[in-house]
């Protein structure tokens, strides 16, 4: 993908990995999450006791396991990208499959977490802390589902032989989105579940 006039360096590349269109989307998503995080932080500043009190009731175990799952699935995606760069199509598909599977476990655990909150009668309108907790985690949850759809589509296309070492932009596009979902959770978990 390098231009002829710009000889590729031994390491490094000129452009962002994947299709630039996905990066516009990623930037927009990061902006939304960023504003949402700051809204949380500043709303908390005006209501510290409330936030500190209800933060205790969150399920940190599930949160931590979910963090590990997302980190691990991100790692799997890295392996998938590395694999396709070596033309190892089957390996690429397998790693993508593991990544989607980890994402599915994340989503399943998240659903049990939501179900537990729901059983306690907690909704978006219970209080400002729960409003943020549910909004942020649900919004992120939807991104995980979206990322799983994207990775599955990439895996199917890879399986069909649409990608190779010479042409793997599509894999990088999906990978970039998935890492964004991971990155956002890396901020979300400590912020909402732990920090006080």
């Amino acid at each position: 993908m390098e231009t002829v006039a710009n000889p590729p360096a031994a390491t490094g590349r000129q452009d962002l990995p994947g299709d630039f269109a996905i990066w516009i989307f990623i930037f927009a998503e990061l902006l939304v999450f960023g504003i949402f995080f700051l809204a949380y932080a500043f709303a908390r500043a005006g209501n510290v006791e409330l936030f500190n009190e209800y933060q205790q009731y969150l399920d940190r175990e599930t949160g931590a396991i979910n963090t590990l799952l997302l980190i691990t699935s991100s790692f799997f995606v890295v392996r998938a990208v590395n694999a396709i760069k070596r033309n190892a199509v089957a390996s690429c598909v397998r790693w993508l499959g593991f990544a989607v599977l980890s994402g599915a476990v994340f989503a399943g655990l998240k659903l049990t977490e939501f179900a537990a909150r729901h059983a306690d009668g907690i909704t978006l309108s219970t209080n400002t802390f729960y409003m943020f907790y549910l909004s942020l985690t649900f919004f992120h949850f939807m991104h995980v589902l979206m990322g799983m759809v994207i990775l599955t589509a990439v895996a199917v296309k890879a399986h069909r032989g649409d990608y190779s070492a010479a042409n793997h932009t599509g894999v990088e596009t999906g990978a970039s989105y998935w890492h964004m979902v991971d990155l956002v959770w890396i901020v979300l978990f400590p912020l909402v579940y732990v920090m006080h």
Partner: protein
Amino acid sequence: MQGADRKAAFVWLILVLLTLATYAVGRLGYGGVTVVVMLLASISLKGQLIIDYFMGLAQVRSRWKWVVTGWLASVVALIGMAYWISI
């Protein structure tokens, strides 16, 4: 494992350890200025590792990559500020 894979595995290990540390802090119920600063530092480190080695932006020359790093830095800084004014 090839070189790139080995590097990714190493990064993964650091991320796991930092996550476990974060969880331990939460489990023990620690709070306060020092803990917040440590957590924010941990977020920055983990985030930048993901940006550099998982997203692979470390080897990208395009200036667009600074958008992501800049996003992380400003979010962490402003969260820190919000916690600072609430003390």
